[in-house]
């Protein structure tokens, strides 16, 4: 590590409050403004403030039940905040949709792989164009020759890649991922992480990844947000060059901080 990086790391280490990432004049992708979400009288999210810039890769981490999925569902428009507001950047007419991917691939078992990807173009493209776009995106996730198969013959990782293709085929500006790799074995996970990073780098969408794997978060994200008891407990930039190496000391440093935050309960 150079002296400069060490200083940089120190300064991050001192920060437990919000870190403003150098914005480089980038547009806002979305912004949570004092968002609260309650189910009945149970407050799941409380006063969330979160600005995410276009093209950023944000990872969200937190203990089970802390409200991560709720946050993503708000972002994807599947739920409405109880109070506060969610603003999407660049609200123009050709606003690209926000897509969400879940831990389960949610493929239609009765539609072939290609037809499942076609679903991602509902209301976006018609006719021949649909099939061509689907085949193109399937090629990008490495499943070019599987478009005529039934989902039931694919492995878990392949199904999740089909779900990724379906989410991306309509060129969303925001992709929300709710523990999409949670059900995969360790080796498939690493492959999928690389695929996800490669596609994110080439397509330049804003990615919001919920994960319970701290190593995954620091190796993929520009920024890690830790949620605890419905609030943002830590907002940490990960200024590490890509391609990143798994388990490198630099990443380990950030991993440590996040784990401390998660388990030490609010370091001073």
């Amino acid at each position, binding site marked *: 590590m150079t002296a400069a990086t060490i200083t940089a790391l120190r300064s991050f280490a001192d920060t437990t409050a919000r870190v403003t990432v150098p914005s480089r004049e980038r547009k806002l992708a979305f912004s949570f403004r004092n968002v609260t979400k309650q189910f009945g009288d149970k407050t799941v999210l409380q006063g969330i403030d979160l600005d995410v810039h276009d093209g950023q890769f944000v990872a969200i981490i937190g203990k089970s039940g802390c409200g991560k999925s709720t946050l993503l569902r708000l972002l994807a428009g*599947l739920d409405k905040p109880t109070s506060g507001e969610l603003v999407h950047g660049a609200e123009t007419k050709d606003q690209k949709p926000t*897509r969400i991917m879940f831990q389960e691939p949610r493929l*239609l078992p*009765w539609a072939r792989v290609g037809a499942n990807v076609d*679903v*991602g173009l509902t209301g976006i493209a018609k006719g021949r164009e649909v099939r061509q776009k689907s085949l193109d995106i399937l090629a990008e996730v490495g499943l070019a020759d599987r478009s005529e198969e*039934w*989902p*039931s*013959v694919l492995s878990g990782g392949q199904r999740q890649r089909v779900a990724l293709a379906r989410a991306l085929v309509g060129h969303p500006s925001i992709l929300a991922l709710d523990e999409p790799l949670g059900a995969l074995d360790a080796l498939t996970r690493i492959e999928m992480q690389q695929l996800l990073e490669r596609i994110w780098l080439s397509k330049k969408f804003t990615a919001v990844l919920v994960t319970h794997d701290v190593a995954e978060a620091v190796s993929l994200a520009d920024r890690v947000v830790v949620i605890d008891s419905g609030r943002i407990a830590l907002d940490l930039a990960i200024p590490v060059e890509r391609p990143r190496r798994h388990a490198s000391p630099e990443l380990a440093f950030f991993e440590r901080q996040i784990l401390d935050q998660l388990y030490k309960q609010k370091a001073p």
Partner: protein
Amino acid sequence: MSRALQSIGRSAIGWLLPALLLVGWEIASRAGLISANVLPAPSAVGSAFWKLLLSGELLENIRISTLRALSGFVVGGAIGFGLGLANGLSALSRGLTDTTIQMIRNIPHLALIPLVILWFGIDEEAKLFLVALGVFFPIYINTLLGIQGVDPQLVEMGRIYGMSRSQLFVRVILPGALPSIFVGLRYALGIMWLTLIVAETISASSGLGYMAMQAREFLLIDVVVLSILIYALLGKLADALARYLERLSLQWHPAFQNA
């Protein structure tokens, strides 16, 4: 090649036992072990079949019975399917009708025969009504269960991707309910024949059941046995047809792959 032979061999093995039974039955009849008044020999049933076939009586009765079965099936099936869909998709419709339907379901439809005869006499409507009523319930219940059993996560996925209500129905809900609907269909086909046999035996002036009852009056036991066999055959045929349709439309289902 050898695999083809193997598969023929496998399906042939199922026919071995019936064939042996038939041969045994024939031998026992000829040896006088089974009285012809109790059970006629297979050859006697065969010749009755031939005689009735030549006279055209058999085909005419099969035609009439099949027509009755199918028209009752179409009426009862359509209403059951329609109501199953409506109640699966709309809580209002379900709240309005489901309790009533469940109450009526507790009446065995064949118990209505005396009432139905009073209403319709022994006309076609009586048979149509009974078959339709019998077919209605399995189709209704399995359509409803099928729709209620569709994975809500898939429905949510369809919504997220902006499917309209009709797209959601055609691409997610109906295909998801189909396996259950087929269970209802096959069950309904069984009930369809059963109801028709009973109805024709009790009140009819044509059809297979009527043919069997007439034969009973004239002690033509070979014709009686023949009618029973033909019912069995028609039932088997209907089931095979339903299985074929099922296989065709559920190709995606792991249970129907590489089978």
